[in-house]
């Protein structure tokens, strides 16, 4: 180990090998996954994310939601019993996400299928504005800065105004309306649902059948 060049070449080869096997190898294998065309109704899956939802993805990103929420349902795990998804997540589910935030912390619940299990957008607005409405004692922060509290204009409440329980309601004559960023974020969350099951992935991930030996 006298020669600096030898050390350099050794380190370089470790790094090159690691990049080539792990990143380039993975890229060759599944970096080019495409949408699947359903044989029956010719729909393309996963469907392209609508523009507003894609903007919401950027709000999700800038608020750092990933620090407490994952977006992945594990194979054959209690995640399914928690109703966080009907099936495990496949790599193909994510090709429509411009940035993928799998996350590695579940201080909050998994959100991969939050759009499928939330009753409606109004629920998510209220959850963002005042999480304590639905989950007293939760440590989820309130995102009230995504909403505007304003006097009711023109005698009639805005159709967008949140229907809040009295404890969380604004002062009389005022209403709480979502800002465009809140609308985008909720559009994104409502769009998070992997409802289509791909035949190829499904067959690959099924448990092996007994007696179907080689």
């Amino acid at each position: 180990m006298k020669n600096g060049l030898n050390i350099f070449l050794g380190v370089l080869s470790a790094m090159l090998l690691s990049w080539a096997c792990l990143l380039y190898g993975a890229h060759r294998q599944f970096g080019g996954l495409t949408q699947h065309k359903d044989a029956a109704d010719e729909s393309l899956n996963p469907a392209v994310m609508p523009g507003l939802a894609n903007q919401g993805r950027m709000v999700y990103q800038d608020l750092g939601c990933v620090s407490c929420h994952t977006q992945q349902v594990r194979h054959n795990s209690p995640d399914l019993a928690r109703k966080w998804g009907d099936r495990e997540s496949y790599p193909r589910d994510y090709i429509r996400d411009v940035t993928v935030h799998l996350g590695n912390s579940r201080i909050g619940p998994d959100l991969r299928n939050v759009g499928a299990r939330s009753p409606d957008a109004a629920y998510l607005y209220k959850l963002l504005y005042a999480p304590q409405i639905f989950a007293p004692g939760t440590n989820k922060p309130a995102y009230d800065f995504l909403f505007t509290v304003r006097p009711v204009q023109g005698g009639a409440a805005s159709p967008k105004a949140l229907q809040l329980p009295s404890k969380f309601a604004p002062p009389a004559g005022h209403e709480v309306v979502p800002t465009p960023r809140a609308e985008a974020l909720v559009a994104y969350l409502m769009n998070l649902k992997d409802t289509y099951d791909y035949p190829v992935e499904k067959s690959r991930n099924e448990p092996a059948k007994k007696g179907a030996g080689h």
Partner: protein
Amino acid sequence: MNPAPAPDRSEQMEIDASAKWPVLFFLGAALKWLLFGGLLQLASSIQLHNPAFLAGCEWFTHGRLDAAARNALVYGWGMNAAFAVGLWLMARLSLAALRHGGWLYVAHAFWNLGVLLGVAGILGGYSTSFELLEMPSAVGLLLLAAYALIGVWAVTTFSVRNTDNTFASQWWLFAAAFCFPWLYSIAQIMLFQAPVRGTLQAVVNAWYVDGLYHLWFVPVALAVAYYFLPKLLGRPIKNYYIAAIAFWWWLFSVAFTSGARLVDAPVPVWVPTVGIAAQMCVPVAAIIIGMNVFGTIRGDFGRMLASGTLRWVLVSLLCFFAGSVVALLLSVRGVAATANFTLLGEFRDTLWLYGTFGLAAFGAIYFMVPRLCGRAWPSAALVQGHFGASVVGLLLLLIALGVGGWTQGRLLNDPAVAFGDITKALLPWFTAQSVAVMVLLVGHLALAVNFFLLVKQEFLPAGAKPASFAVPPALALPAATPEARH
């Protein structure tokens, strides 16, 4: 191949003089970030048990604070401290003064400007939400450019060395100096400049995060351990001939461990499998390193604990071994099924970043700064206080994250437990985490106060009388051992 016979004292002072101001600049910045990052970390931790804390302010919403704290600590404290320690060690071991060090001030300014913009960018809403790459991608270019000016110094100092041989610490520093820009630039390209699609992004992100801990922070910590053990104990590294095996073994196994962070993730199953297999090789390297370092210590724990530097190195080494085992355990599928997505991930990364690297850096700082300034630390009580606070704080933090994480994993895997009850069960552990972070912060404050008091004396017209330091014992090299002939 142990270090050459001790250099002439005057030569060593000349090298120290050349490194003095660049090192003090980097350390000053590191300590400021350590305090600032600690405050952000404390606020973010408080929010987990008191969600109303700072909630109304968008800049300090939990997701942003959490990312900003991590980035301030990793890029502000960790990297600046690693630059300071690494440059000084490299100069000393290469018996070469840092030449034209002026560029290092430029690099220092740009690096810290980059981190400042990055952290402000995260708080202001420009986070990318990729772990440890949350800073806006434009900042990445600035950081890389600044790094180039710093890394090139480590490499040139190494290549103009005035020694016949190289020492283990130099290999580790050299490898780290090369790995960081490689990891960082590839991650920047594959995530932001020419982004890959789908969950491949998570693979790239895990590769970067894992590499940053294993190939940058841990090597710098090991370089510190390999330097100070023989120097301050006065005997060569035991079983030195296997140090090179440990180096290569570590390098080639941790280069492949990143998949272990993606167990059960929606990626092809070989990705985590390769990671787990590589992770199983890592403890072998740790054992060889253990034969080196604990062979050198040889039961001399009393002297280790009595030394202001070696006690840090000792705890850092313990964290290093714990980290190697914990990382393996957490990657095994049966354990990962419970441990995934819990506080245990942070437990492991705390062992690497704060335990292994941070404590080793503190040890080096306590040796280096008084010698660079020619003065003793102004307050011995603050030195003791810092060590006590760091050890107690780290222990408490590890207990909170470890026990809390395991509880969290068990409850998450029991669908009968409502999610709200998991939060309730975790509250005491979140509170313990806040207390631990606070204790650590107090310790860091002690170090910072001591450091700034010491450096302030440089600017007083008639500063305190320069201290004289006991010369470390000479290496007790056996007369003509086989390895001395190499």
